[in-house]
């Protein structure tokens, strides 16, 4: 204890705030770190499951970061992945049970993808890269931040896919019936996974156009 800093850092010091906001843009887990693509393709057909999935992942990332950060000095380096996985899977099971209890229909739509949060690269990445080397509070914020960054992307992708693919948002019809009568047809390709990948590609394109520092040499 004596080796650590004695002065207390403010709860929302600039450094900590950056942990929250960084993943929203310049350090986004999907568009910049390119992690967690698989679930981003699978759950973004409609807005509702995308938001639930984003919340689930945020909760799991934040609390697994917190718990691992508490234990970081006690975890033997050789078996750290196993310890991390146990913590993550306990949290995922809890989240899964909660979803089944309160939003059963969404839980059905998400199907295996809630369980697969265990293998989500974002979580393991944050545990290894951040929680194992930082104090609990910053680790918790880092988890929330990355969850938000993931959620933001999911919501943008789901917005376009549901709007163009089904003509609805949150299940309500947005595109007026008169347009359908005039010959408009929903774009069936938006519902297929390839279009999610292309949508993410376009987002990356736009993001890099405005943030030149992200372009690789």
């Amino acid at each position: 204890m004596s080796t650590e800093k004695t002065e207390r850092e403010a709860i929302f010091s600039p450094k900590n705030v950056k942990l929250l906001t960084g993943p929203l843009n310049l350090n986004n887990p999907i568009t910049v770190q390119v992690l967690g693509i698989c679930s981003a393709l699978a759950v973004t057909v409609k807005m509702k499951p995308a938001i639930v999935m984003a919340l689930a992942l945020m909760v799991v990332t934040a609390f697994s970061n917190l718990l691992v950060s508490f234990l970081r000095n006690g975890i033997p380096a050789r078996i750290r992945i196993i310890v991390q996985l146990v913590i993550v899977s306990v949290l995922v099971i809890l989240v899964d049970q909660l979803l089944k209890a309160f939003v059963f229909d969404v839980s059905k739509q998400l199907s295996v993808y809630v369980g697969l949060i265990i293998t989500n690269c974002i979580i393991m990445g944050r545990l290894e890269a951040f929680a194992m080397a930082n104090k609990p509070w910053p680790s918790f914020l880092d988890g929330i931040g990355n969850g938000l960054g993931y959620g933001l992307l999911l919501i943008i992708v789901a917005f376009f896919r549901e709007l163009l693919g089904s003509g609805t948002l949150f299940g309500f019809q947005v595109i007026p019936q008169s347009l359908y009568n005039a010959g408009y047809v929903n774009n069936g390709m938006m519902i297929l996974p390839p279009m999610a990948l292309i949508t993410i590609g376009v987002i990356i394109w736009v993001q890099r156009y405005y943030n030149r520092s992200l372009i690789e040499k």
Partner: protein
Amino acid sequence: MKALRKFLDKQKPHFKPGGKFEKLESSFDAFETFLFVPNTVTHSGAHIRDAIDMKRTMIFVVLAVVPTLLFGMWNVGYEHYLSFGQHPDVLTNFLYGLGKVLPIIIVSYGVGLGIEFLFAQIRHHEVNEGYLVTGILIPLIVPPDIPLWELAIAVAFAVIFAKEVFGGTGMNVFNPALTARAFLFFAYPGNMSGEKVWIADKLDSFSGATPLGQAMIGNFHNFPSPHDMFFGFIPGSVGETSTFLILIGGLFLLITGIASWRIMLSVFAGGLLMGFIFNLWGANQYMELPAWEHMIMGGFAFGAVFMATDPVTSAQTTKGKYYYGFLIGMLAILIRVFNPAYPEGMMLAILLMNVFAPLIDHIIVKSNIKKRLKRAKVVLAE
């Protein structure tokens, strides 16, 4: 001609750096080289010095599809009136088809070239010529009744995502025209498949199924005769029906040296072989369909002649071209016979092999290097 040249020369300074419209230089350049052969030829090095540029190459392909295009227009009218039991004269048929196909061509070129010019401006490079061909191929591979707004979206998608994101003409992995068709096929299946769409404004009681559509549901009575299928008096996409005229266009491409005969030949060989294998198997009526009839149905011939031979997306090595074409032919027939969701396998087969073309080239080059190394070692050992 001279007056035009003079006019262009007079306008030129405005588009050079420092001029009034310097931002629009690439657009000006595009128009100028479209109208006149550029007088820039290679001056040094061991090159054949020829004024042929990509625009000339592309225009040959456009000329090659003109017969199928004109016939396609006539056939659109012919099939339409046939569904009403009428047989008007050639001109009426043609004019009806012209009215259907011309808007498709205008939209295809308008949207595609618009995006090409936009990208050229933003990126400050010359306008890519590739769209000259793509723009005429797209109208040939869509049904005559395709809603124009859907076509516009598909063209925009194809030009942006199949071509511009890879760096423009010459850099694309996928054939842009087929990408546009694949987009339409998956995004708006209601207007791209089934028996309703292949005849323009047909009478509802008249079945407009293409031979492929009939074969897929196992309907082999009143199947069109091979003669009709070869000469193209069948419903289908605008330019794909007449195998005869496609082959004439293909011959033109071969004589002018634009397309690869290796690819064309091996596509047909692959298709025939797969057809024969199915003939031998013969588990259902579709498999028993004579192998050569596959060649004149649907878009097989069109794909083999105009799509698979695209010099950018096909394999580049001599040996690789055989493998590339052969696999396209085999896969096309395989998809046709086995996959109930995709009546036409040619589009998917070519797109799939587009992805594998660089791999084929890689393997051919590697095996060549290996062979030569071995030969060198033998010489050294002696």
